[in-house]
């Protein structure tokens, strides 16, 4: 049977949706996202979650690579200070993230493209609120063009 229905356009400014990559630590933030899910808290579907053992595992290069490969914003979330499963992974990460954010601001990239936060396993509501905010900011910024690598 001939296809009569045309597929809805998937590209173009009218339908553009921001892509957000979220790096979540296994012990707190990933469980927090899980809790948001099982509690059926609604949050935008624009986020792609990557589970990592600890926020301390994250090399700033991962975030730059995500932006290079077409992410419009990147979020990193770990355990609150003092709650790290590995005692201090998030504290070591905090210093790296502070510098990365300053560096991007310095060279003239939108600092909202890279976001950091802490979400514990019991903070499903907070996780959803953070995603809301990050997606909303990415939407306002528009597509990431500065760092993205043309194919």
């Amino acid at each position, binding site marked *: 049977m001939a296809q009569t229905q045309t597929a809805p356009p998937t590209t173009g400014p009218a339908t553009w949706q921001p892509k957000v990559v979220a790096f979540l630590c296994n012990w707190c933030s990933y469980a927090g996202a899980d809790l948001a899910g099982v509690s059926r808290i609604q949050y935008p579907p624009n986020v792609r979650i990557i589970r990592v053992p600890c926020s301390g595992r994250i090399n700033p290069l991962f975030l730059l690579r995500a932006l290079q490969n077409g992410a419009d914003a990147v979020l990193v979330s770990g355990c609150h200070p003092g709650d790290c499963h590995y005692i201090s992974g998030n504290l070591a990460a905090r210093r790296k993230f502070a510098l990365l954010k300053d560096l991007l601001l310095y060279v*003239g990239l939108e600092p909202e493209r890279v976001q950091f936060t802490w979400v514990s396993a019991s903070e499903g509501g907070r996780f959803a609120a*953070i995603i809301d905010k990050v997606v909303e900011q990415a939407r306002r910024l528009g597509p990431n063009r*500065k760092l993205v690598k043309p194919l």
Partner: protein
Amino acid sequence: MTAGHEIETRLREVAATLLCDKKVDLFLGYEKTSLPLRTTPLFLTSADEVERLAWNPFCAANLAVYLPRFFRAPADAREAKTQPPAPTVGMVVKGCDARTVTALIQERQVPRDKLVLVGVACPGMVDIRKAERVLGEQEALGAGEDGQGNIRVVVEDGSEVTLRRDLVVADACLECRSPTPALHDALLGSPVEAAETDAARRRTAEFESKPPDVRWARFQEALSKCIRCNACRQACPMCYCKDCLLDQTRPRWIGAGTDLSDVTVYHLVRALHMAGRCTECGACARACPMGIDTRLLVRKMNQEVEDLYGYQPGQAADATPAMSAFAMDDPQEFLTEP
């Protein structure tokens, strides 16, 4: 006799004594080359050749870049058996070199007890590019220092041109906060005070005063010259990793070509790796064949580390580098809150 000559004579004496008394197996210094405005690194193993040692306004190279390879840990038990014992190394250090050696000691790349550091108070070293720009069409045939510390250059027609030292020394030297080496076993020359202590901050503030889009455009314009030769990594004494992420191909973390996005990521990552570690010797800027201001980002990162964590690289051999440490109450205003 100029201050430079006096230091050169003393340096030869000190090196000869160290080598004769077997206090060092190897002495690192500078040697004149056939080209003016330049020197080449010299590795001395015998006191008979100390006359080759030179000290002049062109000894810009940071010799600390050669140190880690002498003290590299063996890869395995077999290598440990066959590896010759680590030598004791004597070395000429300027203010920046001493900071670098301190940072390398902090990062356990070189042992302090295997080093004999001959410090020289440094009045700033000539940036060849700056000197050539001032000389314009005239080709330099010979160069030296006059009594005031300015640079005398003999040009093609045999006449002499005097270049004011502050106009031809490297940017890193103009920003240097400790021209007199803090870490040394002997100090030659009279101590030199920093010309200006906030020159680096001023440069950063100048760049920061521009709107973000202008900063990005400037940054991209500078990087568009980059040919990804990795000379900045190669020249950097703090880039001593045996396996550099740039050499890995599985995964290939950063594209090796000159795609502007890859170039940008490379320079951002380099800045992050150097944050709180760069001792601002300017080796990267000297090595860059395209004349890129390779220190733009690292300079900012070091200032940020100083402001946030109160740490300056290469100051104390027993301090923990800021990016290897953390505190419960580190600032975190940058975090996203719902």
